[in-house]
């Protein structure tokens, strides 16, 4: 009996040692990630987000990883639920093997996860959440996207200077995303003497734009500023065309999706959007991302996916240069200048941690997004100026 016990103890010890050595010798860099994959209302963005995260990791691993180490994606589904986002953030921040976190989710879950990451001393890069509270969580949180202030102001500049709009109707989703951009649009539009003829804030669950566009039809406007996500923006395009309004439509990054092109079809032609990805950019990185994404997933990439991909590029660059120490990465990222990304040149991160980069204006022609303008005035694109 004693002999047996000794043998089992030795066996246990050998096993423990083997497992321990394996863990110790683990030559991977783990990056935590979450996206709203299973929430029906956000699943398309969740999918785009997760696919781009996987693509970023696959491509860096194919290229030999970072300093010879392979990158491992530890991904979670937040279901667009803030409680779940908090649980995920706890899991990722209490796991010492996680080097940094990328949020591929909306403002709601990201706003909850950011302070948890900050408190635990983990770096978090948010890909496309627009709420200012995300970066306000602390110095370990960075954001790749424009806040509403930048995008709304840039839209007004385009409306005033390029489209020469005089009478504008605003149709916006009744969320921070819509109200914030509309507020800054109105402020800047006043400088161009633009009259805001009507403002309608539509619940995100409501896809019916018929009655709103009927009302606007009687107002003789020359531009509709549509601060909506793709489903509602598609319906704005369709109803404007079907009801015979002769006005331009200016959308936002919320309408930057292949899904809008699919549902609005020919009615999307002429639509302008402010966004961060210029599909016609000759930059090798942009074209490589677009080609690889289509090749891998057989669908067009969008702003959400491109922003997630960029968040990973920023982390990879930091890790390749200074390793995975959080403070070193933080200082490196905070000091980044003119970094080439899929969504154009990232000029720098401002003090709050928001990326400062030019706003792209794209126009739908022949069912595809194409370059229309770039707004790169430093006074407009740095969120610190608002």
């Amino acid at each position, binding site marked *: 009996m004693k002999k047996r016990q000794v043998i089992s103890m030795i066996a246990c010890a050998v096993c423990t040692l083997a497992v321990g050595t394996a863990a110790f010798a683990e030559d991977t860099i783990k990056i935590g990630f979450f996206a709203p*994959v299973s929430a029906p209302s956000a699943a398309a963005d969740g999918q785009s987000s997760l696919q781009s995260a996987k693509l970023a990791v696959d491509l860096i691993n194919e290229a030999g990883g970072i300093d010879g180490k392979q990158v491992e994606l530890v991904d979670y589904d937040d279901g667009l639920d803030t409680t779940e986002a908090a649980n995920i953030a706890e899991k990722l921040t209490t796991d010492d093997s996680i080097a940094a976190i990328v949020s591929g989710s909306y403002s709601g879950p990201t706003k909850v996860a950011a302070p948890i990451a900050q408190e635990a001393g983990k770096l978090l890069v948010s890909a496309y959440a627009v709420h200012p509270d995300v970066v306000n969580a602390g110095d370990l949180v960075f954001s790749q996207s424009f806040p509403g202030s930048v995008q709304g102001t840039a839209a007004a500049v385009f409306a005033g200077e390029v489209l020469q709009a005089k009478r504008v109707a605003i149709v916006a989703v009744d969320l921070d995303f819509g109200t914030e951009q509309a507020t800054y649009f109105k402020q800047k539009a006043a400088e161009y003497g633009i009259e805001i003829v009507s403002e309608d804030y539509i619940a995100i669950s409501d896809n019916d734009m018929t*009655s709103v566009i009927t009302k606007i039809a009687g107002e003789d406007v020359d531009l509709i500023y549509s601060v909506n996500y793709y489903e509602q923006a598609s319906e704005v395009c369709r109803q404007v065309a079907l009801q015979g309004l002769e006005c331009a439509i200016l959308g936002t990054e919320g309408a930057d999706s292949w899904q809008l092109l699919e549902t609005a*079809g020919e009615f999307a032609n002429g639509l302008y959007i402010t966004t961060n990805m210029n599909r016609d950019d000759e930059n090798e990185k942009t074209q490589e991302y677009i080609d690889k994404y289509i090749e891998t997933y057989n669908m067009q990439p969008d702003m959400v996916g491109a922003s997630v991909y960029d968040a990973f590029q920023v982390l990879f660059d930091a890790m390749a240069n200074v390793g995975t120490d959080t403070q070193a990465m933080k200082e490196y990222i905070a000091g980044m200048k003119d970094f080439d990304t899929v969504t154009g040149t990232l000029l720098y991160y401002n003090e709050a941690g928001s990326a400062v980069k030019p706003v792209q204006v794209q126009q739908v022609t022949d069912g595809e997004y194409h370059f229309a303008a770039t707004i790169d005035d430093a006074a407009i694109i740095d969120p610190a100026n608002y």
Partner: protein
Amino acid sequence: MFLQQLINALTIGSLYALTAMGATLIYGILGILDIANAGAYLVGAYVGWYIFHATGSIVLAFIGSMALVGLGGVVLQRTVYSPILAKPRTLSIIPLVAAVGLFTMSSDAVRLICGAGTKAYNLKFPVMVYKFTVFGKKLTIQPAWIMIFVLTAVLLFILWFILNRTKLGLAWRATAEDAEIAGVCGVNTSYAMALSYILGYGFAAAAGIMTGILYNSITPALGEVPSYKMLAIIVLGGLGNPLGTVIAGLLIGIAEVFLSVYFNLPIPKDAIAFVVLIIMLLIKPSGLLGRKNKV
């Protein structure tokens, strides 16, 4: 503009009436709030989409989807609802919880099987829009609206005919009145229940397809709004009353369009249905056409 908005409102209202009809028929017979009707609406829109894109026929899409989803409803009734209700002392919350579970499952199943992205019906009408001038005002009618009016009217007529002019309808009405006594009198209550599900889920499927055509878009989230708004409509109509549901659907459509367009309400449009419901319940607690003893 008033006439144009009225047409807009009646289009939306017709869809609401058809969407909520399934829940009304099922409440009328089983006395349960079947939220899973919103799942039938969602699944119906997707089944219709696949049939339409496989055959190119929207008629086949409607017939096929209504039949398949209607039969699916009977399967659910036989395997889920009836066994639950057959148990002695079943709390009324239990079938409701089962329905919520079925609805959630249907949304997730659609997302996993059909993908998270949007699908477009892309149904081409010969004319994109009809334009008229009435009293000097421009009026537009979109062919999708005509389809919704006509199809809703036809389906509701079929429902009226079945319920009022056939033996099966008589069985349904008898079962709705008192299932136990109807059973004792020789009425096959099981057929009446199956009828509720075939028609109810079938109508929800048709409403799902029509919504998909109207907005040219279907997503796995399609059933979310109907899942709660249909409750407001069926309660407003007087629980279990088909005619009340039609009136309530149209009323909610009109209230939503006019209140949201002419008054900048601080509440979301989707909440209007519930505000109307609360006002109605304060005035007439049994709903528009409900009988007092039903509440």
